[in-house]
């Protein structure tokens, strides 16, 4: 086998951070963020199945191997535990691995390495061996894909001590969250909503806090690890993440026609959860619905609902509702619109909360 490193010469044209505003798809925004991370940190490495030559099945790593060489961006054999186990060793050697798992459903073979090793090595070594690993996982459903290509693993990851979990809802968030995550010293599971890869949106390079789409409604958020108000409202808070944020914004638009003024909170970080943002929003609206694609039982919606209930118990007008996927395996394309929370089901959930009367 020829030298693993020198198969392609790294180019010297490293990209420097952008300014201003650009219209990009989420795939482009993520690609740009990775490009900048690689340029800024010579210890950052990208690897996984088909991320090199092919640029990833979603092209998120497109062009990076040609630019940074096969030592920085490389294809691995087809074994997810191998990929993540290798990431641990590279992190121990001082690298900043940014591995990819090709699809959500193929993170399961790597769960042992993620839970028992990545999440615990910092703790086990008493802080001497940090795990600055950013694991990119194309996630959630909605693209009529084969089995195991539409899973939502956030509840699993959020339950694991030692992991942080983020999910962007649009190109702006994707760019800033990934740049932030991939420069932290702790492991982050980065869940990319694959159904949104090709949706374009404005990316504001100078401010991570700019709300996007910038409809002028609210600056929102503040901390890079916080949730963000994507639309302000007075009557009810919709809490969502990933691809469900866009759907909730749609629902809020429809509800507004009926005079119902809905606030949409993009959680952004699924661990740690921004409890203060939840409390602030629901103290104001006094009603909440949490929306996610994952199955209902023991989903992250339960945690969100419980956090809200605990902090806002005395102001809540109704129990928090959950509008989620069902407790069934993610179905085939023909049925996925029946499974993923749709506009109707979210509106029904909102209605249940608005019409709630104490018994």
């Amino acid at each position: 086998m020829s030298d693993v490193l020198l198969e392609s010469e790294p180019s010297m044209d490293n990209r420097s951070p952008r300014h201003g505003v650009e219209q990009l798809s989420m795939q482009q925004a993520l690609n740009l963020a990775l490009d900048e991370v690689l340029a800024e940190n010579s210890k950052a490495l990208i690897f996984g199945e088909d991320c090199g030559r092919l640029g990833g099945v979603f092209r998120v790593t497109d062009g990076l191997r040609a630019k940074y060489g096969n030592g920085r961006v490389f294809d691995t054999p087809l074994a997810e535990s191998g990929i993540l186990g290798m990431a641990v060793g590279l992190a121990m050697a001082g690298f900043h691995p940014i591995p990819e798992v090709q699809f959500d459903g193929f993170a399961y073979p790597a769960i042992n390495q993620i839970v028992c090793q990545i999440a615990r090595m910092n703790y086990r070594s008493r802080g001497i061996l940090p795990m600055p690993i950013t694991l990119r996982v194309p996630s959630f459903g909605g693209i009529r894909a084969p089995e195991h290509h539409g899973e939502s693993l956030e509840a699993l990851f959020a339950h694991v001590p030692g992991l942080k979990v983020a999910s962007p809802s649009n190109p702006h968030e994707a760019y800033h969250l990934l740049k932030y995550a991939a420069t932290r010293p702790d492991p982050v599971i980065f869940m990319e909503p694959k159904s949104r890869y090709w949706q374009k949106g404005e990316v504001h390079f100078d401010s991570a806090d700019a709300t996007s789409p910038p409809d002028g409604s609210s600056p929102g958020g503040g901390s890079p690890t916080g949730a963000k108000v994507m639309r302000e409202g007075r009557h009810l808070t919709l809490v969502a993440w990933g691809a469900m944020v866009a759907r909730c914004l749609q629902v809020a638009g429809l509800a507004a026609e009926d005079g119902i003024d809905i606030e949409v909170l993009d959680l952004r970080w699924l661990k740690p959860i921004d409890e203060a943002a939840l409390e602030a929003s629901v103290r104001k609206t006094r009603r909440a619905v949490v929306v996610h694609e994952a199955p209902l039982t023991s989903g992250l919606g339960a945690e969100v609902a419980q956090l809200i209930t605990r902090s806002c118990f005395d102001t809540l007008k109704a129990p928090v509702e959950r509008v989620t996927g069902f407790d069934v395996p993610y179905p085939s394309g023909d049925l996925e619109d029946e499974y993923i929370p749709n506009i109707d089901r979210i509106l029904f959930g909102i209605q249940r909360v608005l019409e709630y009367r104490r018994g």
Partner: protein
Amino acid sequence: MVTAMDTLPTPATGSEAVPLSGPAAPPLTDDELRALYSLMVSVRHLDTSAIAWQRQGLIPGYAPELGQEAAQVGSGFAVDTSRDFVFPTYRELGVARAMGVDMVAYMSTHKATWHGGLYDPLESRLAPIQAVVGGSVLHAVGWAHGQTLTGPADGRLGVAMAYFGDGASSQGDIHEAMNFAAVMKAPVVFFVQNNGWAISLPTELQVAGGSVAGRAAGYGIPALRIDGNDVVAVVDATRRAFAHCRAGNGPVLIEAMTYRRGPHSTSDDPGRYRSLNEERDGAGEDPLERFRQRLLADGVAGEAFFAEALAAAKAEEEEIRAGIQALGPRPGSEMFDLVFQETTPALRAQAASWREESEHV
């Protein structure tokens, strides 16, 4: 310094490969040869049509097996569907067809009707389509061990045949499967289609040592590395492996060397990772054309037979296309009803609210 005296012999890497036992398979009859050709034509036609269906919007996606007809039809042909059980991946159209599986029910998975397909796995002896790479190879081992536990019905065990690819060979589950099967002497045929690629990764960068068959000796498993584009060699090797397993001698691995001539799937763009020249060189001779020439040369079949076979394949494809076209979505209620054998109150409640909110009843 470590001398030869200091090191102990490593039992499994001796000079002789682990030998295969069991009787040799009798040569294929002319009828069998013609049947194989008909199957290969029908599979070729159906496979290339499926790509067209995808382009036309009839099905959302498809993973073609173009170039692997000999490996798939040949191995599937050797299965005894009265006693064996086959564990496919997502690319085993040719195996399914050779086993006589209902092809509309099989293709339904690619229409996004139902993961795993609508065919009856027990009746057809074909496990549901498996989308996890390497996911079902251990199932084959378990099923096969079950045959050992039950005991051979008539002195001949049912055999499990597990399909997987060169890419899958990297998964830990494959190693566990080979070790379990060998420790338990389970009647499993590991049928590897080494088609040169796992999406964009060529076998050289995937399989250290260069060969999946080369791994078998380390488990004490006999292996056959065969020309997977020669359908006769494939049938023979598979029959020989089945005979070995049936007689209670434990597992066998077959590595059929072939080539994925098409894209990984209809969403793939091979131009990004291999050139047309590389494709031509890697693919070699078309297995179907090669078999046709052989039948002609041996006087087993002539142009009239080939024309007839093609016509039959076209008629069959049209029927299947019509079946696919007619295939409506499954009722949403099945999402809830098929999770468990014994459903739960929560699922009943969710089904009810789904009905109310989505069907507005």
